[in-house]
């Protein structure tokens, strides 16, 4: 441990701590001004803003490249430091276009924030004296570059070197002609390109998807978990007026660090897709017709009866709570065998060695924990051709497999889902469900970590909290699970998973929880 004094406050930090981090601690969580420092990237030391005064050293020192020493006496707000920071900040601003009114970064911009702390002066530079560079240059499928706004902190170039190892971005030219760019013929098209937008402290790199969509100060943020694959990156859902505008990664060092992939970021678009189901549909005269919720509920309850249901099919895209309830319902309806946790052929694609998992379902691990087996489409088709009555499908799109569609053609298909899939088109009753961002739900990622996503927006139309629909169904067949609300539901789930504490899932830590008891459970459905 090293003891040091920062701004008159004595603190003790582990040896090897960066002075930058020690200063944050001593300053009650307030960072030193900075652009280039990023805890997950190498030290660049180029923005020159985190200057501090260390007693006994003649010159000011940048805190990001200094390791604490026992007995250090450091000043972060002395007159000398403040003057240097003010001057360096002015250097950052002299060639900046100050086009905040049309800049997406406005409101979450490092330059703006630091100007409020250290600037608040008139410019010494005539607008006509500024160095002009390229604006609004498309450099990849997701990212657009404005070189004039860039402060050349080199975070994006370091990200592409050190995190993705793809090296698309470089700093070209030198002096005040230096600029971030891609080489001719190269695109910033790796699957993590939007992280460069996150770490860009100014509006130099902006998201083509989010550009000009919404002023950031109007957005509300909700913590959730990405449903794009089995990794379960922690995300922040930024939304306003019931509409999601973007997903941003939320740091979880056990899962995704500070990053997430571009594919995951775009999954919010599925929430607002045109083909979302928002009404109950029933097949009348060969066509699916929308009906009221009250009428639809009667249809659903009427179809889901013991003896009437021939097969129950779930999907690892459903939440942990839902899977527990679906499994219980299936057991009551059909007994042990004629059920499956999902179609094991579905939800696989190419993954990478960073975050994107080849398993594109957010909850396959939960199926494994519940011993709720997935089955291959071919095997399922065989089982279905021997079944009769109602085929009850929760999510996914099993009937996209022709063999399954054929096998199910003799059955009455009741589909509870989110989109107008092939299965919905083939169904006789269709009930709208909520998507991940529309509910408070638990997800088990591939590591076996239970993570909670919160409700950011309301589901469309008649869609409602999915677990209530399931409880309604259980009650109607005389097996009331007696859960009045989410806390009780999560106690039920905890009991099902035999967790040591029945309220554990009601008190999940921010970063989620991986139950040691289930650590050795198999990775996927059987």
């Amino acid at each position, binding site marked *: 441990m090293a003891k040091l004094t920062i701004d008159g406050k004595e603190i003790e930090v582990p040896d090897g701590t960066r002075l930058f981090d020690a200063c944050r601690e001593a300053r009650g969580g307030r960072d030193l001004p900075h652009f280039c420092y990023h805890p997950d990237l190498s030290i660049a030391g180029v923005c020159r803003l985190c200057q501090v005064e260390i007693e006994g050293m003649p010159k000011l020192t940048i805190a990001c490249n200094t390791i604490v020493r026992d007995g250090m006496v450091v000043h972060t707000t002395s007159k000398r430091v403040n003057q240097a920071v003010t001057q*360096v900040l002015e250097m950052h601003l002299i060639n900046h276009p100050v086009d905040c009114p049309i800049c997406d970064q406005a409101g979450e911009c490092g330059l703006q924030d630091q100007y409020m702390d250290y600037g608040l002066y008139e410019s010494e530079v005539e607008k006509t004296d500024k160095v002009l560079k390229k604006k609004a240059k498309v450099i990849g499928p997701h990212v657009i570059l404005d070189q004039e706004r860039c402060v050349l902190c080199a975070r994006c170039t370091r990200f592409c070197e050190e995190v993705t190892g793809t090296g698309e971005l470089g700093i070209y030219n030198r002096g005040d002609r230096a600029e971030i760019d891609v080489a001719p013929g190269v695109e910033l098209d790796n699957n993590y390109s939007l992280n460069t937008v996150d770490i860009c402290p100014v509006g130099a790199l902006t998201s083509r998807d989010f550009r000009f969509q919404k002023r950031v100060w109007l957005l509300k943020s909700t913590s959730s978990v990405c449903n794009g694959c089995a990794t379960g990156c922690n995300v922040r859902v930024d939304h306003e007026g019931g509409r999601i505008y973007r997903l941003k990664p939320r740091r979880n060092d056990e899962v995704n660090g500070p990053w997430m992939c571009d594919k995951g970021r775009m999954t919010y678009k599925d929430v607002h897709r045109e083909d979302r189901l928002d009404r109950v549909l029933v097949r009348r005269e060969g066509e699916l017709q929308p009906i009221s919720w009250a009428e639809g509920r009667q249809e659903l309850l009427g179809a889901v009866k013991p003896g009437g249901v021939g097969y129950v099919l779930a999907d690892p895209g459903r939440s942990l709570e839902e899977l527990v309830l679906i499994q219980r319902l299936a057991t009551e309806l059909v007994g042990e065998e004629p059920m499956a946790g999902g179609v094991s052929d579905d939800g696989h694609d190419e993954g990478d060695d960073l975050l994107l998992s080849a398993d594109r379902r957010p909850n396959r691990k939960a199926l494994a924990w519940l011993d709720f087996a997935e089955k291959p489409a071919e095997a399922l088709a065989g089982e279905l051709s021997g079944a009769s009555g109602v085929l009850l499908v929760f999510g996914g799109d099993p009937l996209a497999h022709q063999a399954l569609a054929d096998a199910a053609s003799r059955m009455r298909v009741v589909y509870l889902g989110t989109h107008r899939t092939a299965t919905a088109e083939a169904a006789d009753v269709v009930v709208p469900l909520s998507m991940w961002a529309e509910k408070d739900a638990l997800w088990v990622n591939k590591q076996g970590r239970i993570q909670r996503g919160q409700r950011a927006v309301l589901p469309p139309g008649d869609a409602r909290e999915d677990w209530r629909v399931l409880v309604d169904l259980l009650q109607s067949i005389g097996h009331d699970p007696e859960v009045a609300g989410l806390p009780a539901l999560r106690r039920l789930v905890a009991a099902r998973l035999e967790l040591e504490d029945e309220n554990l899932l009601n008190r999940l830590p921010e970063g989620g929880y991986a139950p040691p008891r289930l650590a050795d459970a198999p990775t996927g459905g059987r």
Partner: protein
Amino acid sequence: MSREECKILSARFGRPDGHRLKVYEAEGGYQALRQVLGERQPDEVIEAVKESGLRGRGGAGFPTGVKWGFVPKDADQVYFFVNADESEPGTFKDRYLMDYDPHQMIEGTIISSYAVRANLAFIYIRGEFGWLIDRVQKAVDEAYAAGYLGKDILGRGYDLDMIVHKGAGAYICGEETGLINSVTGTKGQPSIKPPFPAVSGFLGKPTIVNNVETVAAVPWIMIHGAEAYRAHGTEKSAGTKLWSVSGPVKNQGVFEVPLGIPFADFYRDHLGGMRDGEEFKACIVGGSSVPVLTADEMMGCNLDYESLQEAGTMLGSGGMIMIPKSADMVELIKVLMHFYWDESCGQCTPCREGTGWLHRLIGKLLKGEGVPDDLDLLDKVCEGMGGLTICPLADAAVMPMQSFLQRFRAEFEARIHETATPGSPSRWARGE
């Protein structure tokens, strides 16, 4: 002191075929290497160099032996770099050393590499020195052929390979970490320190970078001893120094004199005074990156590290730019500010933006658009640059700028037109 005395580095300057191995050998060349490899341990060489008081001649003046001593003793691989990227404006001594006597530098490099236990040495020559690169390469080839380089040098069990590397034309690659990065193949720009190259440099291994003039002095020190070297110069500034003198003096060129001689003597005896019709006004004594002194100040000081520092400037690279009365200081500083603006690598914000700002402000003065506040602004921009960056390039721009303003303010004021449209009152001028 006569002009012929004390030729440690420049003995073979101007000698016909002085760059050839046989001429160098005939004059005792490579004897120092034979002696060192036969008789001395690497640490003894380091001690001898420490003892000699030799200081880095590239500009910083850091004691050479001390720098060598920073290499960790347990390093498995050490690299040695000769900095021949001579690009400090006003400096052309290394060019003479390589042109007239490349073997002296090569022998010095081999001994220096041996001292720090390096088995690979680079000579990094600025790309603009096209013919010199060929000349040095040929000398290296001769040294290989003669068994002074390669495996088991002179049968003494020491291996050293030497690569002549051509720079691509950037001032900043003369900064040692920029130089190392340039050889590595990454952008030629300085690295953040710590770590220092002596601990982690080329490919992450301990690396020593020394100027041409520094290593060129090593063979002489080995033959004649540290004591003999210290006999020249002053207590803290030992030995001799090459001065590259430009400007309208009677004798321009490279002069070797002991450190510590009075500038007035050097001016009289070696430079022969200014050309007829010119009057001595000022001097940038150590390459363009040091503060300018007035003629009066120069006439009062001695040419060594300490005296020049006391006088408010630095010995630097010894690139002595003599400025006559007829020169316009604003025009001159514009040339320098253009240089630093052009050469800033652009990494650190104060340097990247500050050099451009200074350049634009001087341009404004020269166009007759300057306002009185601009002079204070120049000063304040300098304050926002100095000492705040990774490498000294920002300081290198600030030192001439501030000293020009301080010592020749009247010439700047004369550039400010009374008719110029005043801008808004400056924040700096308001004292905020």
